[in-house]
């Protein structure tokens, strides 16, 4: 039974998503146990990998261009080469070994979606500033940025099929199911939450667990006393040569979803590469 992380990227006019995926893959290689550190990359243009110094961090590279941008992630069940997969957003970094989370999900779940997140100070995020659609329409508070599924699961297949239908037909689904507050863009989070609600599987795919713990750096939910446009206006982001990440005065030990795409610069990539080479 294979396990691995699936990252989906596509060409974008202003963001180099491959670079973000590369940083994430390096951090996975640097921190996860053998057997729990495989990474598959789905990319619309394989040629771009030649720009990377250590493309070997991607154990599987799948060229696929049927969808644009993040819609591609809704095809994760078709794209993954693994029996057990965690599909991740690419603007994230692993800071320590979380292989035991994967072990748990492989043993106990067919489909599990992150359903809480934390500030950089380790506080549970309760502010619904970015989640009005969820609150107003009573959707489960799902975060597609960490989605575990088994490839042979009928439950997962039904869920992803419906998720794709929702993403393909956002207006129709929003009119019927999200009438209390329609999102400007019906993204993967909303689509997954709505699919879980329609299928009535919230208690199966998002039952209470202490993990996965993901620090979500959306600026307005950091429990600051003032509004913030960008978190980096207020706290620093420091990666030392050992791969230890600090945000502000807090060392990060969970998965960090840093949101601001320019945070992974060449210097950080060099640090992560050096650690990977020495491992």
């Amino acid at each position, binding site marked *: 039974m294979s396990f691995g992380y699936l990252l989906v990227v596509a060409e974008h006019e202003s963001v180099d998503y491959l670079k973000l995926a590369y940083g994430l893959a390096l951090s996975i290689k640097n921190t996860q146990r053998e057997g729990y550190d495989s990474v598959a990359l789905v990319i619309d243009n394989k040629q771009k990998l030649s720009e990377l110094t250590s493309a070997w961090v991607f154990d599987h590279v799948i060229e696929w261009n049927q969808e644009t941008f993040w819609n591609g992630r809704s095809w994760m069940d078709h794209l993954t080469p693994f029996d057990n997969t965690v599909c991740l957003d690419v603007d994230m970094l692993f800071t320590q070994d979380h292989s035991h989370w994967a072990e748990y999900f492989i043993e106990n779940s067919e489909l599990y979606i992150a359903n809480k997140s934390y500030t950089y*100070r*380790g*506080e549970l995020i309760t502010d619904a500033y970015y989640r009005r659609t969820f609150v107003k329409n009573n959707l489960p508070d799902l975060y597609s940025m960490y989605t575990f599924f088994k490839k042979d699961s009928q439950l997962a297949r039904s869920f992803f099929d419906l998720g794709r239908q929702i993403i393909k037909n956002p207006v129709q689904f929003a009119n019927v199911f999200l009438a209390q507050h329609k999102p400007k863009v019906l993204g993967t989070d909303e689509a997954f939450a709505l699919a879980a609600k329609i299928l009535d599987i919230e208690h199966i795919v998002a039952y209470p667990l202490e993990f996965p713990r993901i620090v979500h750096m959306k600026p307005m939910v*950091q429990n*600051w*006393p*003032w509004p913030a446009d960008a978190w980096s206006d*207020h*706290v620093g982001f420091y990666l030392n040569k050992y791969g230890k990440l*600090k945000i*502000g*005065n*807090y*060392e990060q*030990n969970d998965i960090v979803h840093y949101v601001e795409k320019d945070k992974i610069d060449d210097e950080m990539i060099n640090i992560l590469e050096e650690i990977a080479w020495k491992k």
Partner: protein
Amino acid sequence: MTIGILMYAHNSQFVDYALMSIISGGLAKKHLAVPASLVTDLSTMEWMQESNILQKANSVFEHIIIVDRPVTDNRRTLCDGKTQAVVPFVNSNRASAYDLTPYNRTLLIDSDYLIFSNRLAEYWNVDQDVLIGQSINDIYVGDRLGYNDRYISETGVKLYWATTVMFTKNNTSKIFFDTVNFVKEHYSYYADLFRFDSRQFRNDIAFSVAKHILDGFKSSAVGTLPPVLTTLDTDVLTSVDHDRLTFLIAAPLSEKYIPTSISNTDIHIMNKQSVIRHADQLMEML
């Protein structure tokens, strides 16, 4: 293992911390059934002699430890209900508790923390070398606390309350107090690093930064004492009847006061003058 309470009192011309420490130390000694000791300075001792409370101090405290009065230009605004004054604040030597305590396991408390229960006695045998008040709870049913009562700064670390600190005298707690002292001595540097206001030294901040560093630069609920129930200095202690204390609580954004009373409950009373006004009744309980 010897256990006991330690407190500090350095009088200013505005606040009789010596008198407050006798009240606080006497109540703690009575309700926790352990000895108490006081750290003070010569001028405060002379005041105790002059104001005829030295004898009481000698009966309350097992040891009175004389140290040099800390040199500080710390000042802060202290309210007594609606009136307020900017007063000197001599409190910068609490990191010396490790060296000065005569006990193996010490409960260090502020002199405005009045103990009326044995709740903290549950922590004498807790297997933690250093414990500190995890937060303060406002006695008011709403929430009058500000952001800087919860964090040391807007983006900074959680604020713990050194109103109550318990520690065992060993290497771990020595490292903790050494770190507190280091933060105190390099307060401006840490203020830059942790983004807090350095203009007034606060023990709570120095202790919080030390705990954060030694916890591995993260917040940890390990090593904490219960939240400190608190009345603000805009509140007024109006009567003391045996163990029952009655307060007028200043309603936020209003001129109104709301009466409330508590009994058999430990309480941090920030309005020091209102404690001193009821010193006679409080002393009768010792």
